[in-house]
């Protein structure tokens, strides 16, 4: 057995609304959608016309900058058009589903017998290529690269995150292994699977074959693949590593076993404003509305925040919104859009702070209903040492962010920008006294770097 890597820095935010371990099959949504903004750096070019019939696995759009990357329909039905946002940016490609799914056939095959090129070709055609991401930059991988290694995190440590052990038990047992087999063909190095000590017990993870298993313990962000990469085999300048998530591996497995793009995934409906938080089996791109019927604490939508993903990194959505491509979680929390009289003065019992300035420090067992209020205005960096407490990496986050602020690419490289993604520093953003938008700054830095080097 490999040694356990102990993550000491980090923070588990004690939120109310963890999902109960009950799995329900969700009804089919009235509409499904694939959202181009989910895929950072992709500029969509549509491949279907309004009203056209699509099967599950039919291409919907491709990336203008890398035509090989296509996104496909998660269900069969009728393409009903796109929703546009500011500057005519395409936000959603919508499909009205059939009652039963009809699948486009990609042909089943044992990945062990296929060549690397054939595997890549299949992944690209089915649209599942988009599930494979790369570091640096945290974007969809380039199919022409050969990665140093591939990483998969078999546990999610984010606030209210779904239990991947529970999720994997809801899928076929061997499909995950088939998916891993396909991935091992993509790299000359190793496939690393990180599990949680002591919580991971599912045999699909602990007895996975052909991969190197690593054990991690500790608070969030221990489950973030970026933190795991940093501790197992850090990304250097010039390196490329790929990573993906557990449910994508299952989808890849199904692609090779059955020859179809079966976009079924299990998501956790969580958050303090959900009456019965639990797990749902849905198709990729399902609408949030189909899950929350009669299941919210209030019907006043202006006082609720719908998030596809977790509270730290998820994307803001709405009742009529759709579950994001990479998300296995939907969170509903209260909006904090009410002013509070001299709120900074009194120590509030119901407020949570990671610092020791509030009573929450003295009540570690308590769970909180945290709203979306900023709790203060934007300031320059004043307090030091806060970020370091929640970032388990050998990186000086404030210096990295300052390098990004002045757009000094060389300095960013030296300070380790290749190793980070916005999600890894999400906790820094949470704890920040100065309310600095850390995640978008990191993304800005990554974009600048990518532009400079391409």
């Amino acid at each position, binding site marked *: 057995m490999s040694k356990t890597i102990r993550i000491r820095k980090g923070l588990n935010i004690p939120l109310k609304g963890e999902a109960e371990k009950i799995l329900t099959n969700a009804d089919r949504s009235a509409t499904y959608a694939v959202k181009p903004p989910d895929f950072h750096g992709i500029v969509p070019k549509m491949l279907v016309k309004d009203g056209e019939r699509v099967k599950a696995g039919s291409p919907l759009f491709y990336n203008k900058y890398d035509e090989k990357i296509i996104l496909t329909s998660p269900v069969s039905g009728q393409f009903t058009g796109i929703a546009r946002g500011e500057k005519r940016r395409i936000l959603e490609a919508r499909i009205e589903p059939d009652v039963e799914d009809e699948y486009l056939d990609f042909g089943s095959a044992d990945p062990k017998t296929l060549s690397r090129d054939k595997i890549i070709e299949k992944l690209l055609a089915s649209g599942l290529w988009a599930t494979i991401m790369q570091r640096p930059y945290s974007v969809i991988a380039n199919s022409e690269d050969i990665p140093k290694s591939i990483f998969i995190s078999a546990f999610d440590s984010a606030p209210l995150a779904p239990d991947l052990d529970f999720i994997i038990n809801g899928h076929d047992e061997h499909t995950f292994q088939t998916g891993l087999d396909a991935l091992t063909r993509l790299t000359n190095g190793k496939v690393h699977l990180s599990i949680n000590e002591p919580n991971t017990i599912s045999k699909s993870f602990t007895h996975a074959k052909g991969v190197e298993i690593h054990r991690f313990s500790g608070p969030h962000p221990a489950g973030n693949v970026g933190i795991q990469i940093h501790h197992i085999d850090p990304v*250097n300048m010039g390196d490329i590593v790929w990573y993906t998530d557990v449910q994508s591996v299952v989808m890849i497995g199904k692609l090779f076993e059955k020859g179809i793009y079966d976009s079924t995934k299990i998501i956790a409906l969580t958050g303090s404003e959900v009456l019965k938080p639990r797990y749902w089996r849905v198709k990729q791109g399902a609408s949030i509305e189909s899950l929350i019927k009669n299941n919210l604490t209030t019907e006043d939508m202006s006082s609720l925040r719908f998030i596809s993903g977790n509270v730290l990194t998820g994307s803001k959505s709405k009742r009529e919104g759709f579950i994001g491509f990479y998300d296995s979680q939907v969170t509903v929390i209260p909006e904090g859009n009410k002013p509070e009289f001299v*709120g900074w003065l009194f120590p509030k019992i119901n407020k949570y702070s990671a610092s020791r300035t509030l009573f929450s420090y003295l009540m570690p067992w308590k769970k909180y209903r945290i709203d979306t209020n900023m*709790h203060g205005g934007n300031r320059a960096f004043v307090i030091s040492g806060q970020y370091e407490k929640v970032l388990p990496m050998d*990186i*000086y986050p404030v210096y990295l962010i300052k390098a990004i602020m002045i757009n000094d690419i060389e300095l960013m490289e030296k300070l380790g920008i290749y190793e980070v993604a916005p999600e890894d520093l999400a906790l820094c953003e*949470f704890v920040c006294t*100065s309310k600095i938008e850390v995640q978008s700054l990191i993304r800005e830095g990554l974009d600048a770097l990518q532009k400079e080097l391409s």
Partner: protein
Amino acid sequence: MKVIKNIRDKIRPHFYKGARFGRFRRAWEAFDTFLFVPEKTTTKGSHIRDAIDMKRTMVYVIIALIPPLLVGIWNTGYQYYQAVGIEPAIWESFAFGFMLILPIIIVSYLSGLATEFLFAVIHDKEVNEGFLVTGMLVVLILPATVPLWMVAVANIFAVIIGKEIFGGTGMNIVNPALLSRAFILFGYPAYLSGEVYTYTRLQEGHQLVDGYSGVTPLSLVAEGKMEALPSDFNMFLGNMPGVIGETSFAAIMLGGLFLAITGVASLRIIISVFAGGIFMAGLFNIIALNEYMMIPVHQHLLLGAFAFGAVYMATDPVTASQTPHGKYIYGFLIGVLTILIRVVNPGFPGGVMLAILMMNVFAPLIDHYVVQANIKRRMKRLRKAQINVKEKKP
């Protein structure tokens, strides 16, 4: 509360951009956010945020300043009555001290905040909370005898030259409160000489006792009059002539404890300043060339503003070292320098202020080397990886 909210909602539109008082919207904003935590919600990034903010952080520092302030008020009165040979009741000392110190507090805040607001309005930036703390710190490091106009001039100087020309709170290089004091020390040295720290404008019917000097213990030491020092216990309590806030070791430790428990001030820095001071004082004890060098270590910590500097001044997060390792070096050197200046250069017995100002200037350099070490580690790893790749290739 509802009434206040209604009034606020009524007034607010006048301060929107382009409205009648739009030009003063930053000033309004400062008052408004003071009364109400704004209803601003997250738009990008993390959807939830920690309940801590700059206002709360600053208010905690002010809470921590209350013990030394209270002892300072009492002590100011008490020292006066000592000077005229009267044994006062506790409330009498308080009342007398309060009468002297309240105007200093008011002038300090008015002058500093007015400058801050002016800059915020001109530059169209949010007013920073930094001066809430600076304003009180300035009072506590001045003697009760300081003329009020001098407080105002020094504060305006400190806010402009110490802070605003660099871009405001968070960008400044040296601690503005210390800069304010340094301004008075070098501009009007007679007022900070350490010899007339007791209010000597006598009230009617009062007369100075024979042989009264009002010299601070630190000056006594500088003059070599070790035997005239107050007892350790009195220095611990703060019953000695000195500037308003720094006499009482006990009260400062109480505030320091609060800051350390709440995590507002860096315990790393506080401890390393003391470690540096103890190290240097101990070293002098061993060398022991003159009487000054032979002052016991614990007396060094009780004398002058050593403790106050360690707890409240060195820990200013903006001007201190910002890397975890840098904080140890920064704090330790402050301790060492304070004792060094005190003992070797009796021209400036109050060494802690100069030591901190000097280390403020060096803090970015310390951080630079700490960060460089991190960069070097990364480069080493890169080279190792490159060699591995080369070996694999053929």
